[in-house]
Structure formats: structure tokens, C-alpha cells
């Protein structure tokens, strides 16, 4: 209802505009128009309805303004001469205007005139009629909204107008919309079954959810129409199911990317070095806080470059988290190599210290990290609406993964890293400074966690507890994917993300998550070393 009112107001404005520029729609002379206008003040609503359709059939550009006035209750009929005029209340009088010529008339006392009454049915007629009228407008937006209006009202009366409009229409998008509207109107009319079936085919070719709304009333119909409607509904439903699946996959990929970002640093420290770093989540948290600080500095010094704040935060977060990582490795972890359970406890202690440090420094509540403009907004893909941030996070996670692979495979540091993890003593005797490589490897893992923090600051609350929310999930990803294999981490993260999103609709978000945890626990029993496990003697501890 509100929509129609809004639409009428819009069309009214456009109609007035139209009137002044005298668009090249047909214009009939005053003598033809006048009696039709007078007929609006008929004795009952049926007369008025007929008058409206007669007016519309003239195709005159003034009609839409008139009808709008009628819908808004601005048309009056004088008690004395039964003439119809456009009135506007002013004190005890109506300021009157001729509805056909637009000439100013003498004010009419309020007691001497009567409003032409409209009921809801009439209002619908009016809206449909206006819709039909503006179908011929020059303005493409106007034509589009007119077609959309008919799609909503499904008035069979507008079918002939639509035929005209479709014939004249050049814009294929609007033309399709008009055909849809016509089909919708046909479904709402008493035309023979064959035409209805054709209309059903037409409708089901359009937007699935709208079509479903149009076809559902026909679902129970008998005969071939009902049959056609039912089969169309089921095919639309299966199409929607496909899009739902696509949505789940895309949402799952974006959740998986978040998991990948959080876990990939862990895949290095745990997977490559065998160090259980329970403070990994805090490295992510520190990265997020670095983003916050960078943005604060930019806001204070150069607000103009705020859109680039994340690009500046990336290296900053890498360095800060990486630096903290190196510090932790040198001060604690290096004394605990080969004692994974002790490492786990010590790093848990570190995580408590880091959390409390951030809490003392920045306060316990969330800090506000802004989104740059290119992260805001959304775009459409088929029947889906996706936010840009969702897309960016997928792109970002995959790039981080690719760069990390390159670093490990192609650089000297990567080569040394792999050498040290495969045979520490041999690497050391070949002149590789293993302690140095250890520290850098740990720093790399932590730095990547920091980068993940930059990304997560865009989609999650930045608080001292940020890391705690990710640590268990990250471990699950690494363990599920298989330790010591970055590809495993990628596949693990994505499949867990997608599994989560597919379970959510059936089980709800929390239960879905619980199910995923239980499934992983069961999975680890079956394959204790994950999806992509290394085999062989060397792995046996």
C-alpha cells in the first residue's frame, strides 16, 4: 500500500513534468475529455471505474495527473452544477482549478462541494491505470516502474496497454519486464487456458522468487493450467535450490577464507615446525589492533588516504605480529622444542599475558575499525546479493595462500625452512643457522596471523578476546586438513566453511557448528593424521 502511494507521488511529479513539456503522446481535445472527467463523479464506484478506463483509453497525457488527484482525494464535485474540479483546501474554501484545462477557477466554499470518494478497489484501479499510462512514457525509469507496478497489481485491464507498450519498447530489459507483467496480468484474467499456459511459461522465465509469488495462487487450479503451474513451480523451486546451494557455497567459501586466514599461520608453526602455538589467536588479535592504530594515525594526520588504510595496515600488522612472534620464539619456545605438550601450556600462558596487556592498554571493550569505501556495498550475481567485503576476503585469503606457497617453494628462506624441518642436524651441519631459521619461521607464521587480523578487523568485533574465538577452529582446520601440508589447510578450511553453511539452514548456526566439531572429532578417529597425511616411517613419533 505504502509502495503504491509512493509510486503515485512519484508518477504525479513525473506527470506534471510531462504536462509542461507536452510529450508526444496522443492528445485529445477538451470536448472529448470533459465528459469523461465528469463521469468520474458517477453515482457509484462502478461508474467511476468505467470512467477511469475510458480516460485511460484516450491516452491523453493529462490523465495521469487527473487520476493521481483522484487517488489522493483532490477531485471535488460542485453541489451546484455537478462540475468536477481540482480543489485544494484553504480556510473555509477550496482553491479550485479546472481539471482539463488547468485554468484557475473561483474558490468554492467547502460546504458547496463534495469530494469524489474512492475505495481501495478504486485506488488499485487508479494505480494500475497510471501504471498503464506511464508505460508509454519517454523516461525509461518511469516505464520500468510502471511495468513493475502492473507486475504487482496484475490488473487484466492493462493487457492491451502492455501490448502497445511492448510493441513500442526498445530497451530489452524493460521489454522483458513488460512481458512478465503482461503474463502476470493474463494469469489474473479469464482468458482461455492456452494463453494462460503460455503466460506461465513466460512468468517462470523471470525472477524466480517473484514468479513463485505469481504462480502459487494457481497451484491448486484444476486442468492443464494447474498442471502447468505446478510443473513451473517445481522447476522454479529446483532452480532456487540450485541458487541456494550456490549461495551456501559462496558464503561457505567466504567463511572458509576466514578460517584459512586464521589457520594458515598455524599451519606453519604447527604443521611445519610442530609447535603448538595457543597464542596464535592473539597474533591475529594484535594484527587487528595494529589496523586500529594505523587508522587512528591516518584519521589524525591524513584523513584523505583513509581508503588506503588497510594497505598500510597489512605490512604494519605483519611486522608487529611477526616481531612479537620472534620474541616469543626466542624467549620461550626455543627451550621447549620436542615437548609439544609443554609448548602448548607455555603458549597458553603467553596468550593470557597478551590478552591482558591489550586489555590494559586499549580497554576491554571493542574498538571501532572503519571499513574503507571499496569494502562497503554489494553487487548482484544471478539471484544472489553479495557484499563486496565477502568477495574481497575470499580474494585476499587466496592471495595470502599463493604468496606463502611462493615464499616456501621459491625463496632461500623457504628452502632453509624445509631443510630444517626435514633434518635439523643435517641442515645445521650444512651451515644453516637453525636457531635463526626457527625464529624466522615462527615469525612468518605469526606475521601471517597478523595479516589475518587486518582482514578479520573488517568483519568481526575487535576486542582483546578476538583471538580466542578463532583458535579452536583454526586447530580444527589444520588437524582436519593434515599437518605439514598447506594444501591440506586450504582444502580443510574451505570444506569446513562450506559444511558449516550447509548445516546451518537445517540445524541453526550453533548446532551446525557443534555438528561440525563432532564430525571432525569422528573424522580424526578415522584418519588420525588428517585429510592429506604424510605417510611413512619418519612420521611415527
Amino acid at each position, binding site marked *: 500500500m505504502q509502495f503504491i502511494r509512493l509510486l503515485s507521488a512519484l508518477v504525479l511529479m513525473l506527470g506534471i513534468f510531462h504536462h509542461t513539456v507536452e510529450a508526444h503522446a496522443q492528445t485529445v481535445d477538451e470536448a472529448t475529455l470533459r465528459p469523461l472527467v465528469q463521469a468520474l463523479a458517477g453515482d457509484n464506484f462502478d461508474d467511476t471505474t468505467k470512467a477511469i478506463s475510458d480516460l485511460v483509453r484516450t491516452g491523453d497525457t493529462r490523465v495521469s495527473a487527473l487520476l493521481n488527484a483522484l487517488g489522493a482525494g483532490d477531485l471535488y464535485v460542485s453541489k451546484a452544477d455537478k462540475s468536477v474540479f481540482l480543489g485544494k483546501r484553504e480556510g473555509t474554501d477550496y482553491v479550485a482549478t479546472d481539471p482539463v484545462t488547468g485554468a484557475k477557477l473561483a474558490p468554492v466554499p467547502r460546504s458547496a462541494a463534495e469530494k469524489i470518494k474512492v475505495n481501495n478497489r478504486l485506488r488499485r484501479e487508479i494505480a494500475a491505470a497510471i501504471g498503464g499510462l506511464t508505460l508509454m512514457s519517454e523516461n525509461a525509469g518511469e516505464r520500468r516502474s510502471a511495468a513493475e507496478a502492473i507486475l504487482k497489481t496484475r490488473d487484466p485491464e492493462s493487457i492491451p496497454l502492455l501490448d502497445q507498450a511492448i510493441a513500442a519498447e526498445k530497451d530489452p530489459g524493460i521489454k522483458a519486464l513488460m512481458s512478465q507483467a503482461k503474463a502476470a496480468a493474463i494469469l489474473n484474467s479469464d482468458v482461455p487456458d492456452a494463453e494462460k499456459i503460455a503466460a506461465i511459461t513466460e512468468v517462470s522465465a523471470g525472477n524466480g522468487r517473484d514468479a513463485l509469488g505469481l504462480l502459487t495462487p494457481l497451484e491448486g487450479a484444476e486442468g492443464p493450467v494447474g498442471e502447468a503451474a505446478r510443473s513451473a513451480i517445481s522447476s522454479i523451486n529446483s532452480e532456487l535450490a540450485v541458487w541456494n546451494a550456490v549461495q551456501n557455497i559462496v558464503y561457505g567459501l567466504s567463511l572458509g577464507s576466514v578460517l584459512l586466514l586464521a589457520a594458515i599461520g598455524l599451519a606453519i608453526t604447527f604443521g611445519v615446525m610442530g609447535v603448538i602455538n595457543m597464542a596464535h589467536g592473539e597474533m591475529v588479535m594484535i594484527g587487528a589492533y595494529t589496523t586500529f592504530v594505523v587508522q587512528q594515525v591516518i584519521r589524525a594526520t591524513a584523513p584523505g588516504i583513509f581508503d588506503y588504510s588497510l594497505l598500510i595496515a597489512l605490512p604494519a600488522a605483519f611486522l608487529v605480529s611477526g616481531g612479537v612472534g620472534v620474541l616469543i620464539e626466542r624467549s620461550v619456545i626455543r627451550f621447549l622444542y620436542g615437548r609439544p605438550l609443554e609448548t602448548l601450556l607455555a603458549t597458553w600462558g603467553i596468550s593470557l599475558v597478551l590478552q591482558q596487556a591489550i586489555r590494559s592498554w586499549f580497554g576491554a571493550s571493542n574498538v571501532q575499525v572503519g571499513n574503507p569505501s571499496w569494502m562497503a556495498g554489494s553487487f548482484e550475481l544471478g539471484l544472489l546479493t553479495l557484499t563486496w567485503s565477502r568477495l574481497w576476503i575470499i580474494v585476499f585469503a587466496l592471495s595470502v595462500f599463493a604468496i606463502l606457497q611462493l615464499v616456501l617453494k621459491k625463496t632461500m628462506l623457504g628452502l632453509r625452512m624445509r631443510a630444517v624441518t626435514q633434518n635439523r642436524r643435517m641442515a645445521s651441519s650444512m651451515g644453516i643457522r637453525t636457531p635463526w631459521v626457527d625464529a624466522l619461521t615462527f615469525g612468518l607464521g605469526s606475521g601471517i596471523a597478523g595479516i589475518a587480523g587486518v582482514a578479520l578487523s573488517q568483519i568481526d568485533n575487535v576486542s582483546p578476546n578476538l583471538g580466542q574465538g578463532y583458535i579452536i577452529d583454526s586447530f580444527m582446520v589444520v588437524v582436519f586438513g593434515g599437518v605439514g601440508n598447506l594444501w591440506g589447510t586450504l582444502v580443510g578450511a574451505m570444506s569446513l566453511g562450506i559444511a558449516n553453511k550447509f548445516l546451518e539452514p537445517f540445524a541453526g548456526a550453533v548446532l551446525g557448528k557443534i555438528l561440525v566439531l563432532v564430525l571432525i572429532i569422528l573424522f580424526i578417529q578415522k584418519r588420525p593424521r588428517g585429510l592429506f597425511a*604424510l*605417510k*611413512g*616411517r619418519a612420521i*611415527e613419533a
Partner: protein
Amino acid sequence: MNAHDTLLYLDGVSVSFDGFRAINNLSLVLQAGEMRAIIGPNGAGKTTMMDIITGKTRPDAGDVYFNGEVDLTKHDEAEIALLGIGRKFQKPTVFESHTVEDNLVLALSGPRSAFSTLFHRQSRDEIDRIHEILYTIRLYDKRVWLAANLSHGQKQWLEIGMLLAQDPKLLLVDEPVAGMTDAETAETAKLLRDIAKTRSVLVVEHDMHFVRELGVKVTCLHEGSVLAEGSLDFVSNDQRVIEVYLGR
């Protein structure tokens, strides 16, 4: 060849790890009461072979039979140990935070269920048997020591003692004399020969002096399959064996 009437029977056994063939179509037969020495360069598959016999590794293909009838590939480590196959590891693996005596108590044959151990009381027979083994492996004086405090050689002997306590039909002994002095090595050879009088033994060793002292049939493994088999002199004169050991 038939598995019947053999103690240990391996036929066409293969296993690979991530594409690397650790054992390749290996066949080996051990008669009851026989002692056999296995030699071969590093990576020849000696330890993997022991892993397969003791159920630690499942072969991809091939038959492994014990006593001519028991399919070892269908059992796990504990079951295989209870069937009567004992194993000594390359790196001496004793229970470091237990005393020497407790190490033997754990190894001693007897009921292995959790509840029976909870209410287990040591019998006179068991104590006697443990003392006997302690004398055999010359650790009677050190029986209250923690195993962690033993020397490398003593740990090796303790592990052999644990094998004896297990009372197995077949002993798999992986590099028993690594890190031993010459005198200790000679003692160990003597000990193993004594053991072999009543049981079957499979010894993996690099030390040729030791193998010579054992004076038994030798099998040389290379790249996961048998390269040569026979007396030590026969095997060590085989051209392929020489190539494998000296490189080509």
C-alpha cells in the same frame, strides 16, 4: 613354497610410503629353531620388514604367516606379541622411569588385561623367574636402579632381558650391539646363540664381526627385496652385494 611347517613365512610382500617402495616383493622363510642374520645397507627395508612382521605396518600386498597358519596382517601389535613374537628396537627402548626390575615385571608373560593387572599380586614363581633373568643379563646388582641411569650397553641387555621375560617363540632383534664395546659384543653374540637353542631368532645387524660370530645363515636385503642368501662368506663374495655396499 608352502607356508606349512615354517615359523615365519613372507611371500611377495610390498609396501610403499607416498610412492616410495620401502619393501618390494620380499619373500623370506624362517624355520622353527633357526637363527638368521639380516644385513643390508641403510634404507634396504630391514626395519620396515620388522614393522610388518610385528603388525606396526600393514603391507600393501603379500602374505605374512606365523607358525604356518596365523595371518599376521590380520592382527595388531599386541595380539602378535601375545602370539609369541618379541621385538627389540634399534634404539634401545626401555621404560626409563621404571626400575630395572619393574621393566622385567612388565615384560613377564602373564595375563595382560587391565583388571587383572589392577589386582595382580606377584607370585613366588614370577619373582624367581625375574631374578634368573636379572642374573642372565648381569643386572642383578642394579635391579633397583631406574632404567634411565643405565649405560647404553646395559639398556641393550635389559631390552634383551625383557624379550626373554616375554618368553616368545620368535625374537626380532634390531642392531643389538650398536654402541657396545668389543667385549660386550662378544658376550651378546654368546647370549644370542644360547637363546637360539630354544627359540627362533631374526637379527638385523651392520657389524660384520658380530654376524660372523653368530655363524648363521645370512640374508642380504637391498631396496626392499632379497639380494642374496646363504652363508656369510657366500653372501659377502656375491658381486651384487659388493656393489651395493661399495657403491657403483
